[in-house]
């Protein structure tokens, strides 16, 4: 009974929990409630993944209205995997949030934080699960509006301007998406993605559909922070509260990348966007520039959170590179990197959250000699950093290995070379933090600090150790990603 309603529960649970948090008021109660809801969501996502594991597609009709008239939730392996990423991260981040939020957000506002967090969570899950193009827009705006609020809760006043900048760019992106959906609706008379996929080929050679493709892709690229549309990202990640940074960095851009996959491969069909419009060439170039330029900029940052934010832009480049290759191997690499990067950046930003809790900043020069007083936190950062670089036995290595394979398979040897070269740049920026923490003496005048509390270290280490686990046992991640990639490419008409 309940198994068949899992798709609805996935979205409805956190959606109803958000206003409930406002009624609960007490920050501890809200935290406990949000954590329980988040774990339940994880259970639902795992259930959905099991139901779709054999390649089946769950089609859930909201309110019993038949698609394409009603809204359809359509779950296949691709979005079951994305739902899993989002819920896993949330399930790990929320236990961490209690101490971190208490330190960074005024007590009387904490319930609003949890309520916004749950709304953002709802929006991200909704984008991933729905099979209706307009419904995507609604969920996109739910997640965006709540993330603007979450970012503006940062202590620094620059969090406000960062949130404002993100609001402007995010709204432009979402509106572009809306224009694209509208143009497609005008040409086909449907909003259901599967139905769109059937009807687009008949009108594919019109300028309206070309324009729709452009609007949709640029709109999503803004939300996904694909170079050069990433300008909102560094400030937003840098000044947001630590929990928010960890959550958004690990999920929000991933969900947008998933949406890009959906639009390009399921709705238009890979042969259209990449074959007819030759959009893949644009993406390959942007991905490579992102990898190199953002990594280089990251090296010169003075704030570790900002450094990691630029590194995120570079890592998004890897995912886009995998997508733009358009082959099964390339897509596998892109999709598996969605998961792996969520583990890496989630872990690293949580470690930064521990640092921020004790130091009150994430500036690299404040971290001199930090390894002496916060050994577990800095060790977590080092291991996360190794995974970011792509050292064997870590998840980062798996993603890059598959991407290099895919690039070589298509004869793009220079792309493979650049992937390896940008890993070297990653060594340089990770080293800057490591050098400060391990090889500088602790200044005499430094405020005495201790190790972060266990409640924060344990979630951090769960994500960090996951990097090793999924770096050695790749059967789950790569297996699911490959099946998902085959489903996407196979779905192309």
């Amino acid at each position, binding site marked *: 009974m309940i198994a068949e309603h899992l798709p609805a529960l996935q979205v409805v649970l956190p959606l109803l929990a958000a206003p409930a948090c406002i009624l609960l008021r007490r920050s501890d109660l809200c935290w406990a409630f949000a954590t329980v809801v988040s774990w339940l969501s994880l259970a639902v996502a795992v259930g959905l993944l099991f139901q779709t594991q054999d390649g089946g597609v769950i089609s859930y009709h909201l309110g019993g209205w038949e698609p394409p008239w009603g809204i359809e939730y359509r779950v296949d392996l691709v979005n079951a995997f994305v739902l899993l990423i989002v819920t896993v991260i949330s399930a790990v981040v929320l236990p961490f949030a209690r101490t971190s939020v208490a330190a960074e957000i005024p007590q009387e506002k904490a319930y609003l934080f949890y309520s916004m967090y749950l709304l953002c969570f709802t929006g991200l899950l909704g984008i991933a699960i729905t099979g209706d193009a307009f419904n995507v827009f609604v969920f996109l705006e739910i997640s965006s509006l709540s993330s603007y609020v979450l970012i503006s809760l940062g202590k620094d*006043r620059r969090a*406000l301007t960062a949130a404002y900048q993100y609001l402007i760019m995010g709204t432009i992106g979402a509106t572009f998406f809306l224009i694209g959906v509208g143009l497609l609706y005008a040409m086909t008379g449907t909003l259901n993605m599967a139905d769109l996929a059937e009807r687009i080929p008949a009108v594919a050679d019109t300028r309206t559909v070309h324009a729709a493709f452009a609007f949709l892709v640029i709109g999503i690229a803004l939300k996904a922070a694909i170079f050069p549309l990433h300008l909102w990202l560094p400030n937003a990640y840098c000044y947001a509260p630590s929990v928010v940074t960890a959550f958004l960095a690990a999920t929000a851009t991933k969900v947008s990348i998933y949406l890009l996959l959906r639009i390009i491969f399921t709705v238009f069909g890979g042969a259209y966007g990449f074959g007819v419009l030759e959009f893949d060439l644009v993406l390959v170039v942007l991905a490579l520039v992102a990898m190199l330029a953002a990594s280089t900029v990251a090296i010169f940052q003075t704030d570790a959170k900002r450094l990691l934010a630029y590194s995120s832009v570079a890592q998004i480049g890897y995912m886009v590179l995998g997508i733009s290759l358009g082959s099964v191997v390339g897509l596998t690499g892109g999709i598996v990197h969605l998961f792996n990067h969520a583990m890496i950046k989630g872990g690293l930003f949580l470690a930064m959250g521990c640092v921020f809790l004790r130091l009150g900043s994430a500036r690299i020069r404040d971290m001199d000699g930090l390894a002496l007083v916060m050994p577990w936190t800095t060790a977590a950062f080092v291991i996360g950093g190794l995974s970011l670089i792509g050292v064997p036995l870590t998840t980062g290595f798996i993603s890059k290995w598959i991407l290099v394979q895919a690039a070589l398979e298509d004869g793009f040897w220079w792309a493979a070379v650049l992937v390896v070269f940008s890993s070297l740049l990653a060594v340089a920026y990770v080293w800057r933090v490591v050098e400060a923490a391990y090889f500088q003496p602790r200044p005499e005048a430094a405020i005495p600090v201790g190790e972060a509390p266990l409640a924060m270290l344990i979630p951090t280490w769960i994500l960090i150790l996951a990097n090793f686990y999924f770096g050695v046992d790749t059967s789950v991640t790569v297996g699911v990603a490959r099946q998902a990639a085959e489903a996407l490419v196979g779905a192309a008409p």
Partner: protein
Amino acid sequence: MIDPGLYNYWIAMILMMTGFYIVIARGNLVKKIVGLTIFQTSVFILYISFSKVDGATAPILDDRFTTYGNPLPHVLILTAIVVGVATSALGLALVVRIREAYGTVEEDEILEQDSNE
């Protein structure tokens, strides 16, 4: 000559670019929100205008009429308007907070204060 039958799209596009230009070119945070609202509204007009069917009446069932306009875009745009209002409200709320923190709503002055830190 431009086909006059498509003038609605031209109006939507002109409005859209007007709004977009204001967002990019103005340094005043409130004016940026105004531009953003114009930008969003142009999309609403785009949707509404293609729901109009030649010679059709409003989509209210009645024995006297047989052709109706398409009601679906209206419904979609009602949702989008709500989203737009929420966005403007949140944007303006942020501007209020920015003014409290910086004492100005001009982008260049804010950047200047930030670079001094």
